[in-house]
Each structure stands twice: as C-alpha cells, then as structure tokens.
C-alpha cells in the first residue's frame, strides 16, 4: 500500500468548500509536492492528512491508518514528522533543550547532536530560541520534524520567506531526507521548488487537483508544441518564409510546432542560403510556470 492514499477528499468551512474531491497517492520514498496558490486548499488537505482536522467526506489512509482515528493516532504520529507554516518553538529554551524535549516523545529518536548538525545550528546549540534569526528558527523547526526519525514527513511551505541561500540549504535537506528513504509531502507555491524537489507534483486550485504528474511531463509539457520565435529579417515578409507562421506582430514571428527539428532545419537552411539573419531566435517549451498559470487561471477563485 502507498504511504498516502487520498480518495475523493472533501472539506467545507461553513458554505466555503475548501477541498472538493481531491484524490492522489504518494508512494513510499517519494517526494510529492502539492503546488497551488494561497487558499487553494493545500494546507487544509495536509491538516486532514496530519489528523488535525476532520474531513467531511472521502477516504484517507496515512501509513495504512486513518489519521483521525484516535486509537492509532499516537502510533501514527510516532512515525510522522510535521513542519508547520508557523514557526513555533518555546522562546525561553535553548536549541538543545527544545530538541531534547521533543526527542522524548518518540520511541527511536535521532541523537540530538546529530539533528543539530543536520540543521547546521552547531554554533547555536546553547542559545535561547528567541535569540535566533527567523531562518535559524525555521531550521530548528525542521529539526523538530526530523528528530523522531519519521517514515513520512509533512513540510507545509517549508521555504516561504527564505532568502535564496536559505532556500538552497532547505532544498538540500529535503534531498537528504529523500536519500535516506523518507517519504516527503510538501506544499509550496513556488514552481521552481516543486520542480527541483518533487518526483511528482499535483497542482491544486480552487480545492481540486487540476493536473498531476512528474514535473517535466506535467500538462503534457514534454510532448506539447514548442514555440520558435525570431525577428523577421529586413525586407522579408512572413509569407516569404519557408515555413508556416502562427502569429506575427511588429516584425516578430512565432511558429508553433510539434516538429521543431524539421522546422528549424528548414528555417536555418533557408536563412543560410539567402544570407538572412534570424535575430532573437529562441525555441521555447512550456515552462512549469506556463502550465501552472494556465491551469490555475482556468479555476475561478472564490
């Protein structure tokens, strides 16, 4: 059985349907990203998987159990790591004390010094938490998520508010978790984050999944048409070109094709033979961002 199975999940707050029929599976050892704009239903979905919120409908299995079932909840949580959006650590305790406390909750915790090394807070081991910078507190937060040696870790927008260096470090940490065999479910609204980290991505918008797949195949990115763009050479009309032009605007042409090798061969051969330059020539495939914007724009945001 996969690590996570979600089938037709539904959740409303009053009249607002936050999650409307979400289904997906996450395999063991996989990094799965829920990508979507704010208010799309990412956090609600994750909170249901964590057993924090009760669902209105649908089936949810996390490591083979219902996360809201009281009788198995403690055993389940001993196998889960959870990093919330809010940075929440006791301000008056030191880094070591906070980690030591959380380590007592788990049957097989990592040695605290090992966690401190992993999150790169060796210098701050005995510093009070309130003296840490925002980024350092966030790393401690991640440390609390991994101290119990979880089989499955939830990362809710793990790099929101990070500077580029801190993001790279956080990404490396996720890659290390994956390398160690931990299953990761992360939510994010950063396309590059999903692309860099996830084995599979589900785009969620308006409470429903609008696309799902490996980042490089999402929205048929790998097989869909490419765009070839360049500026028309002087004294050349679009009609003079050896290939059919899709759009032309102010001397800039775009050719949409699924047969880019053939088209480029034809076009560049023609240009060389006739001594034309193709200024600004680019070949573009849909980016994950194009797919994301297209898919999320189609959904009417409540």
């Amino acid at each position, binding site marked *: 059985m996969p690590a996570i199975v979600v089938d037709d999940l539904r959740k409303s707050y009053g009249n607002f349907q936050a999650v409307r029929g979400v289904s997906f599976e996450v395999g063991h050892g996989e990094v799965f990203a829920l990508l979507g704009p704010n208010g799309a239903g990412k956090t609600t979905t994750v909170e249901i998987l*964590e*057993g*924090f919120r009760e669902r209105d409908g649908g089936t949810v299995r996390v490591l083979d159990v219902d996360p809201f079932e009281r009788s198995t909840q*403690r055993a389940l*949580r*001993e196998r*889960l790591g*959870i990093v*919330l959006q*809010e*940075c*929440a*650590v*006791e*301000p*008056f*305790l030191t880094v070591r*004390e906070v980690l030591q*406390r*959380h*380590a*007592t*909750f*788990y*049957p*097989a*915790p*990592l*040695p*605290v*010094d*090992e966690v401190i090394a992993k999150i790169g807070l060796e210098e701050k081991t005995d510093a*009070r938490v309130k003296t840490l910078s925002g980024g350092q507190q966030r790393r401690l937060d991640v440390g*609390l998520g991994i101290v*119990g*040696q979880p089989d499955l870790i939830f990362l809710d927008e793990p790099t929101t508010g990070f500077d580029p260096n801190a993001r790279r470090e956080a990404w490396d940490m996720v890659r290390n978790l994956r390398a160690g065999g931990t299953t990761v479910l992360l939510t994010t609204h950063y396309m590059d984050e999903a692309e860099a980290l996830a084995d599979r991505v589900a785009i969620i918008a308006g409470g429903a999944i609008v696309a799902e797949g490996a980042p490089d195949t999402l929205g048929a990115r790998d097989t869909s048409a490419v765009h070839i763009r360049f500026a028309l050479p002087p004294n050349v009309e679009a009609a003079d070109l050896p290939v059919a032009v899709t759009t032309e605007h102010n001397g800039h042409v775009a050719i949409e094709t699924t047969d880019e090798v053939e088209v480029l061969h034809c076009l560049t051969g023609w240009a060389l033979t006739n001594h034309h330059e193709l200024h600004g020539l680019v070949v573009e495939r849909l980016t994950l961002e194009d797919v994301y914007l297209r898919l999320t724009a189609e959904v009417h945001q409540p």
Partner: protein
Amino acid sequence: MSTAVATGRRRSDLGLVWSELKYEQRAFWRNPFAAAFSVGFSVVFLILLGLSGGNDRVSFLGNVRTVQYYVPGFLAYGVMATCFNVLAITLVGRRELGLLKRLRLSPLPTRIYFGALLLNALVVSTLQIIALMLIGRFAYHVAIPGNLIALVLAIVVGVVTFAALGIGASGLIPNQEAAGPVLSIVFFVLLYLSGLWFPLQPGSALARISAWFPVRHFIVATFAPYDPRPHANAFAWHDLLVMGIWAAVASVIAVRRFKWEPRRS
C-alpha cells in the same frame, strides 16, 4: 556525541510526565513575567503589608493580627496567580505562537501535557507557599498552622479550581495582546472584592457580592487553619464545596472551548 541511543521503545507515561515537568519548570522560571507576577508579587506584598500595620488587630476575626490574615491571603494569591493568571496567559501565548498546534500534532498524549502543566503549577505553588510561610514565621511571628492537613487540602482544591479556570479562560481570550490586561483586571478586581487587602466584615455588601466568586472562598479556606478563634473549623467545607462547583463548571468550559491553533482574523 549524545549518549542517547535509539532504543525503539516508547517512554513510560511517568517518564514523560517527569521530562515534561522539567520542561515546564525551565519555561516557567526563565519567563520573567511568570515568575515575577506570581512568586515576586506575593513575596513583596506580604513583606510590605506586614511592615505597614501588620500588628493591627481585626476585632471581628477574634482579634487576629492583620499579618496573620495576610499570610494565608497571599498563599491564596500565589496559587491563584500561578494557576489562573499566569497559566491562562501562558496558554494563550503558546497557542498564538503555534506551539499548542505543534504539540497537538506530536505523539505526546494530551493528558500527559496537561498533567505536567498542572503538576508544574502545583510545584510553583508549593515553593511559593513555603517561602511565604517562612517569611510569616520568621519576620512576623505568624505560626505555621497546627492543622496542616486542612491547609494542604485547601491549597490542592485551589490549584485544581484555578487551573481549570485558567485553562477555561485561555479558550475564551482571542489573542495575546488581550490576555494580560483582560485577565489582570478581572483578577485584581476580584481580589479586591474578595478581601485580599483587608478583611471583609461578615454580612457586609462586599462579602455578599464576593461570595458568588471562587476567589473569596479560597481566601476563606486558606485562612481557616490560621483562624485564632477557639471554635473555628480549620476545614472550611462550605467554601471548598463552592470551589469544587466552580472547578466542575470551569472544566466543562475548558474541555469545550479549548483551542489548539492560533486565531487568525
């Protein structure tokens, strides 16, 4: 390297309560507000009030010296400040920071968390009470009461009642900014009405009004073992019963209204 080795075995409940109590103790004593508002206030007020007119006598309480009235009064204050005021403000603060939500999502059972929180309040109260009794004894010649069992019972009922009220109040307070002022105003007005600063004439308007609130009953119950009148009962059963009713009502509110996640509006 740490000596902790993964054993793969869950800690016993008792072991967890112990480690949580140690955590709560650290968090309490390092929080300047918590320590000052409970222990600091009670000690300073007892010393000051004892100095200013502590030897005056209260005719309607068997000519007891005022300071002998203040010692049990500030024992009660210490318990109430620790269990009600500081506990409620701490819980609201932890909730708004997201600490309670994080804890809720950890494997730590809720009963162990609250058990340790209560024990912590009991430990702080006990330390405070010992300090106040020693100050009373050596600075103001207020004897340790003969019926210690009655005093211990009153204190335990007080800890439970005011902790239940504190946990219940935390669920009703929307944010951290409101917690301190709102709780402190309610608390000090009740302390005033209930005769912490001056003994209330039996049957007076204040005595009748404050009889509706648990603060008055707790002050009466801690004073009972200190009451010098010959036929006074060291066990204030009636007052303990009223506190018990408050504890029951507060527990229901605490369970129903407790919030684990920050309120966002």
